[in-house]
């Protein structure tokens, strides 16, 4: 059920991620092909955001490793872009739409340098792509949920990356916007970019994605949508929780056991 690929763009090897020693993702082992629109599917609390955050290096791994473009994250940060969940930031923040989109250029600019004209052009271009050009100087607090999401998307586009991770970019977005965005993402993958999207609406999965990752505390399946997005696997992903697994997780947390056997220094 877990299809591994040759020359993967993302390779996750035996990844376990814990919060406070309690694993929320167990032994995820997968590889993803280049140039696809990939969906991460799973119930609430399945660890979808955790998986992305861990790939982006935002939370430490308990064990395992991740390779992007066959390299370590630190070497390829500039080629990767990330769209966090919308609720993770304070939208009362005093910033305008263009301010936020320009943040996408910061990684490339380096320390102390101000965005230049070329950066502003890229940012404007990205706003145009998500149909938000008219809102350029609007304060972000005045945007609707869908518009906020599009601003985040534009910011990610402004990074001009090769690999995109997006955490629920369709949350709170109206149907028309969702169509626009999906079209945009399709175009990106056609140009050879890889886009990985956490998605909630099971109905649209077969239509949107050509590869899916099914997740619930562990990797249930990863592979081409036709062969992977089956009712049997859906059942397994959304069906019963693995209570034994959670209880073992709780034991790890309470006992504060070392996450792996770091105890034995090899000679």
């Amino acid at each position: 059920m877990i299809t591994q690929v040759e020359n993967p763009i993302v390779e996750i090897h035996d990844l376990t991620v814990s919060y406070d020693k309690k694993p929320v993702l167990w032994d995820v082992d997968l590889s993803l092909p280049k140039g696809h629109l990939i969906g991460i599917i799973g119930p609430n609390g399945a660890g979808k955001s955790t998986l992305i955050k861990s790939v982006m290096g935002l939370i430490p791994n308990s064990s395992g490793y991740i390779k992007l473009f066959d390299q370590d994250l630190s070497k390829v940060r500039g080629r990767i872009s990330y769209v966090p969940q919308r609720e993770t930031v304070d939208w009362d923040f005093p910033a305008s739409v263009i301010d936020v989109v320009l943040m996408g250029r910061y990684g490339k600019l380096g320390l102390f340098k101000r965005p230049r004209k070329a950066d502003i052009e890229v940012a404007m271009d990205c706003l145009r792509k998500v149909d938000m050009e008219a809102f350029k100087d609007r304060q972000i607090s005045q945007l609707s949920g869908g518009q906020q999401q599009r601003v985040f998307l534009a910011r990610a586009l402004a990074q001009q990356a090769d690999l995109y991770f997006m955490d629920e970019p369709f949350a709170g977005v109206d149907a028309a916007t969702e169509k626009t965005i999906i079209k945009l993402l399709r175009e990106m993958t056609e140009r050879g970019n890889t886009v990985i999207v956490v998605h909630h609406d099971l109905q649209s999965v077969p239509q949107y994605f050509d590869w899916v990752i099914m997740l619930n505390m562990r990797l249930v399946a990863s592979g081409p949508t036709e062969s992977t997005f089956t009712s049997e696997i859906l059942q397994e992903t959304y069906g019963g929780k693995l209570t034994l697994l959670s209880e073992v997780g709780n034991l790890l947390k309470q006992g504060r056991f070392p996450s792996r056997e770091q105890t034995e220094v090899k000679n």
Partner: protein
Amino acid sequence: MSNDLQIILAGSFVATACGLLGCYLILRKMAMVGDAISHAVLPGIVLAFLFTGSRDSVTMVIGAGIIGVLTTFLIEFFHKKGKLQTDASIGVTFTWLFAIGVILISVFAGKVDLDQDCVLYGEIAYVPIDLWITDAGTVMGPRVLYISGTVLLIILVFIATGYKELFLTTFDPAYATAVGISTVLWHYLLMGAVSITTVASFESVGAILVVALLIAPPATAYLLTEDLFKMMVLTTIIGVLVSVSGYYLAVATDGSIAGAMATMAGLFFGLAFLFSPTEGYLVKKFRKEKAVMH
């Protein structure tokens, strides 16, 4: 320069430096950490006094700056390693350090030219008579003006060079990390800047009222604009207004200047809270009623 002007200028420098950093503190939801640092630097100040025997030493700013960063570190240590909730961790840490500071002042009352009044509300009134005289005997003018001016300059340079990084790590720390900007580094740089500023402001307005200058002007500006840059400009203007109006209020009533400045800062906030064109409580209420009537 007249005495009035010197005091007002010192007050404005202090209020501006504090306010500019305060913008970031309140946007990061770290207002109370700022409060904690401003209390906690007290023992650092007293010790630096004791060892160097003077006020205007760089040692003092550096020493207290280190204690400020240490405070942040302690708060995080008790929170992370001790599993103590953040609010309690803040409360325990700063009261402890502040208590040590007050006791040190009492114990070394004879040796340290500092007293509890200074801790509580500073000595900004003495700015014009506390002069910087070089070894050669040249009178350079009020010492505090030099100190607060230098610190303001440092803060301006800090914010101007790190604007983009401060902006991003404040707005969206996860994204900042994802694009390779160190949130930890900027966190500690900001805390260091807050420490230096509170130490430098300490003599003028005392350890507690500096909090009013850290929080009230940016909070007022936050209600008046939705643009970070404008918020900082407004904060500066409000800081100067607080300094001017506070000074004259104090002169009129024969009260503490720093206390009057804090009072005015509160008044300006109250006005913005009620009447801000976009956010004002009364304005919003009025608009709602109008909408209902239509």
